[in-house]
């Protein structure tokens, strides 16, 4: 518990996490508001209200990576290991604090987006959260943010540099996963198993008819069920995080 307090003090006594959280909320809710206000002609579906969650996810992952890399940048990781030489417990405490915070930001952004859509959409008759699938589309964002933050913490601890860690995360999520589909023959099959593609199936996959715009096709690709997709994404995040713990333990600080 004391180490959780330590990591909480560290995180909230600098400004960048606050900026990242505000940006994550502002981007997702703000863009959703614009979409909702301009949704004419048909009832706004639930998926329309959470479509922008990926913007927030990237920002939250940057926040999580920064939580580790700034410690390396400014040498405070050495003070941390000096104070707690087993190294693993402060890293786990950091993960608990950052992951919980990310989940809360995820929930705030998705329910904020959904609530604002409810207020702004001309026709909100389809926006009500009536089924388990509807709830997954909205509340699931909290889980995806949490797992994404864990993944970013692992990458940050392995790479140790802000620029490196942030570029790896953003280039992978925004470029590699799209470009890989252009590989002839096998590209599509590889893309189906890329972590962020799979994670979006958890949010967007298997919607009820009322949750998607009229006449739209299946909104997400992938072989796994929505919950299987989340398990896959979370497993990748956990694996990278555990590898980072092993490396941090063995490496000279």
């Amino acid at each position, binding site marked *: 518990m004391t180490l959780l307090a330590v990591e909480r003090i560290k995180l909230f006594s600098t400004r960048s996490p606050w900026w990242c959280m505000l940006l994550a909320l502002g981007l997702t809710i703000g863009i959703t508001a614009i979409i909702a206000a301009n949704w004419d002609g048909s009832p706004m579906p639930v998926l329309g209200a959470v479509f922008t969650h990926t913007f927030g996810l990237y920002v939250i992952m940057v926040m999580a990576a920064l939580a580790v890399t700034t410690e390396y940048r400014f040498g405070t990781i050495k003070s941390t290991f000096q104070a707690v030489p087993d190294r693993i417990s402060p890293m786990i405490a950091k993960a608990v604090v950052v992951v919980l915070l990310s989940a809360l930001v995820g929930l705030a952004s998705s329910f904020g987006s959904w609530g604002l859509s409810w207020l702004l959409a001309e026709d909100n008759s389809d926006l009500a959260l009536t089924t388990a699938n509807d709830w997954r589309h909205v509340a699931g964002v909290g889980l995806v943010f949490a797992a994404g933050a864990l993944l970013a913490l692992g990458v940050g601890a392995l790479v140790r540099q802000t620029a490196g860690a942030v570029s790896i995360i953003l280039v992978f999520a925004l470029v590699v996963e799209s470009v890989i589909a252009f590989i002839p023959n096998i590209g599509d099959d590889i893309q189906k198993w890329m972590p962020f593609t799979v994670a979006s199936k958890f949010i967007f996959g298997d919607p009820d008819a009322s949750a998607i715009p009229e006449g739209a096709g299946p909104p997400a690709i992938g072989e796994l069920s929505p919950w299987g997709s989340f398990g896959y994404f979370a497993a990748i995040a956990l694996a990278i995080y555990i590898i980072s713990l092993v490396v941090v333990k063995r490496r000279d*600080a």
Partner: protein
Amino acid sequence: MIEATGLTKHYGRTVAVDDLSFSAQPGRVTGFLGPNGAGKSTTMRMILGLDAPTRGKVTVNGQDYRSLKQPLRVVGALLDAKWVHPNRSARAHLQWLARSNRLPDRRVDEVLDMVGLTQVAKRRAGGFSLGMSQRLGIAGTLLGDPKVLLFDEPVNGLDPEGILWIRQFMHRLADEGRTVFVSSHLLSEMAQTAQDLVVIGRGKLISQTSTAQFIKDATEDTVRVRSPQLDRLRELLDGRARIAEAAASDGALVVHGVEASFIGELAASNGITLHELSPQLGSLEEAFMQLTKESVEYHAAE
């Protein structure tokens, strides 16, 4: 008490620390002296468990640092005063450190007061001058009231006032019975701060001794003699001391290896008049450079 035995660290093919054994005793300031790149910081990182030794071991109060439960209560160490998040306030920095070892919040205020930073406790540490950063770092080392303290080059870049403050601070800590281990590449600084010296070069131990003994050994006795019967005196000294003709035009002798009293008695018992008999103290830095010349990693071209 710090004890290193056969401590060795390799980085790839570079040997940073080579079979180093030494100890630092409680109640004394022990200087850790060596030219830049001699392996002082690497050794300190190994003491703190930040780097793992390739071979050998080092203990603090008989324990491996990594096995300490609340290390800040046993060892306070300042390796780099810039290891602070620049946007975090001085107080918040000490707060998380204190909390990590279950030290009460009021201890933060106490150490801030001890180093005279109470007024600026809420300001961001990134805006601190070097002297203030150094004080903040020292406040961090004092949090757990530890019995062992380590400082890596604490006076580097400080103004004379800051240097004096740190020197007195270390003496006070040692007088309270603590082990104070402080590194430097300046012998002249260590001569005024440390009672014991551990001298290393290229990762190897050159000597471990008291500072007074080190200076005595390093600066050979030299005596300047002038006399109207210089030739006679030279004959008498022959075989007992090394003699060099002084470059000065007054025809003085510079005698190595015997003390001034010996020359005075020799002259008196042989009825020789002396016009000058003066012991010369060698320069500390010269002596230190002589000792570590072989082990400096990079020489300036001569």
